[in-house]
């Protein structure tokens, strides 16, 4: 299937990759519709790279592996090329300002992204009793073959993820990067159907007790598998988290899985993440229990922008909101 963005990326990487450079990109996994992040070290593997409509993952979370964490490759001599959607660049900028990555060994490959798939919507289209055997994108049609071999085609507009509908098609990067694809054409028609400002959130419709009851019902489905914590670029202390405190130092947070503890877990996680959350939506996408976490991170993202006028990932030198103050703002 022709995917000219992917070929342009591969062609660019082939031209610029030197001897011990490393590429962090995505390749197809044997589950249809989902790509697996991969680290490619030599030119021959570059052809496995996939990009475009199924690029759901935000690869920024792997970058801290390269520079700070235990099993890292920080003995990296060459450069690290990272395949990024424009909305992932905010995550990379925020991690640089949190000193989790040093940018001078990093080169971002940003490409003209026309939106990404939302696999939940695809599943709803197919119905709960059938499943996908193979899935492919033909210009504006998703062509699927189901398990019993019957073909099905769904228009892209039906399954594009809601985050992309608000994309204003711009990104700002100060570190070294390259844009693959025609930037002017890409910027010419932004989606931005529902602009972020007038979005009505759950916290606007409900207040107090019934908001608490609804969130409690949703969060009681949580099985505390830590997937939302480990996939989040803003939750960068993933294997040194306060919830993983070793038993010898009496951690004051129990590992009990009960509605109250789940709320406490998410409350503490969003308290930590609120200043540097770039609302990339990864935590909601991958939650095995389907918990609508957008009810929470949308609220905190908007809160940071409105009351502290701080948008995460906007500049890699400005530290996050909790590390600065303005005289006389008397917030509390």
């Amino acid at each position, binding site marked *: 299937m022709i995917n000219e963005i992917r070929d342009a990326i591969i062609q660019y990487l082939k031209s610029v990759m030197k001897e011990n450079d490393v590429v962090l990109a995505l390749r197809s*996994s044997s589950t249809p519709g989902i790509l697996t992040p991969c680290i490619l070290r030599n030119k021959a593997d570059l052809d496995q790279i996939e990009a475009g409509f199924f690029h759901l993952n935000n690869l920024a979370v792997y970058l801290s592996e390269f520079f700070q964490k235990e099993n890292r490759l920080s003995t990296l001599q060459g450069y690290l090329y990272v395949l990024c959607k424009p909305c992932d660049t905010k995550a990379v900028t925020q991690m640089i300002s949190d000193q989790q990555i040093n940018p001078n060994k990093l080169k971002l490959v940003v490409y003209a992204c026309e939106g990404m798939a939302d696999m939940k919507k695809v599943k709803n289209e197919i119905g709960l*009793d059938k499943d996908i055997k193979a899935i492919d994108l033909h210009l504006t049609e998703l062509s699927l073959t189901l*398990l019993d071999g019957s073909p099905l085609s769904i228009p892209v507009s039906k399954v594009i993820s809601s985050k992309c509908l608000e994309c204003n098609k711009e990104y700002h990067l100060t570190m070294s990067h390259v844009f693959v694809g025609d930037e002017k054409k890409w910027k010419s028609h932004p989606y931005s159907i529902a602009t972020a400002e007038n979005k009505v959130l759950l916290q606007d419709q409900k207040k107090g007790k019934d908001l608490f009851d609804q969130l409690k019902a949703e969060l009681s489905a949580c099985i505390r598998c830590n997937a939302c914590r480990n996939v989040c670029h803003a939750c960068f202390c993933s294997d040194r988290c306060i919830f993983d405190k070793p038993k010898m130092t009496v951690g004051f947070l129990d*590992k009990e899985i009960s509605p109250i503890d789940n709320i406490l877990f998410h409350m503490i996680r969003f308290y930590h993440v609120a200043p540097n959350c770039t609302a990339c939506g990864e935590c909601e996408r991958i939650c095995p229990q389907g918990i609508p976490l957008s009810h929470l991170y949308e609220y905190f993202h908007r809160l940071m922008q409105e009351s502290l006028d701080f948008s995460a990932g906007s500049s890699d030198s400005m530290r996050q909101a909790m590390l600065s103050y303005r005289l006389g703002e008397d917030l509390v």
Partner: protein
Amino acid sequence: MKTYQISKSQLKQLLEPYLTAETQLIAPSLNPLGLISFNKIQNINEIALNTSIPLKPSKSYLFPESSSLVQFDEKNPHLLESDISQKKQMLFGLRPCDLAAIAYMDSFFSSNISDHDYVQRRNNTLILGVACEYPSNACFCTSMGIQPGTSIHADIFLVPSGEDFLVEELSEKGQEYLASISKGWKEASNETLATQKNEITEKTSSKLIEKIDLSKIRGRLSETYNKDFWNKYSEACIVCGACTFDCPTCSCFDMNDSMISSSKGCRYRSWDSCSFADFTLHASSHNPRSSKLHRLRQRILHKFQYTVEKMDQWSCTGCGRCIRVCPVGINTRSILKDAKEALGE
């Protein structure tokens, strides 16, 4: 063991006794978050049988996420045995892969050291299996030697044939339960049952994406310990633990005390996962499985190697949940294929 043929309306009769106050009926249904999962059923037509298996197994009804085992109070030091809910429950709508998983969990929890908490819940539970007609693209039960159409691990096994169900008794508990409610049910011959089962097995296994022949590498997986195909997967893994919590045969748990006051509290047990950072963290803060590679490899080798050595059975039933739930698309089937290739099969 008799088999009956019942219509859809008579199915209500089969499940009715478990809809009373002191009992609970657990079956797959659409939960408020829009996913199919095992929930407590209020009335029969909520049950959704014609879907692929729920993402979260019924494990949490036998081995709950966290249950308080013992309550203690230093001031008057006696151990209050925590009262496990005596509710009789029926697990309905389990497919052969889930039934095989429950059989493994039974043998795990009540082998030489029997786990009081699990055994008590298990004795209160009546298990009704259903033949599987709607596999997902991640299923590989046939590669693990399980036929989607039949199973021997349930108390009662239903085989859908057109509009009706063939009900097969498999255990004394099932026979005794059926004896009490099967008034006026039409008996069915074993042949029709067997042919219906084979037909379903053929139809479903033809739908599966692939079947891997693991017989040659059974018990030889530890030779792939230092092979480098593991890096391909561990570099992508984010060690989150979703695969282990959604796996019907993962039985690791962690014990902790939750103190209400400095003298009163309860010791509870909650699920733990080998992917978590502090699973094998020693008091000296040395961690033998510190890197992601160690943890991913441990999960696969435990399922396909160590249980074969110890209990001479796979502890994976091919339900495919770990593949469907993985945020980064790590596919257990492709790991097994790479292992086969690395062993030169």
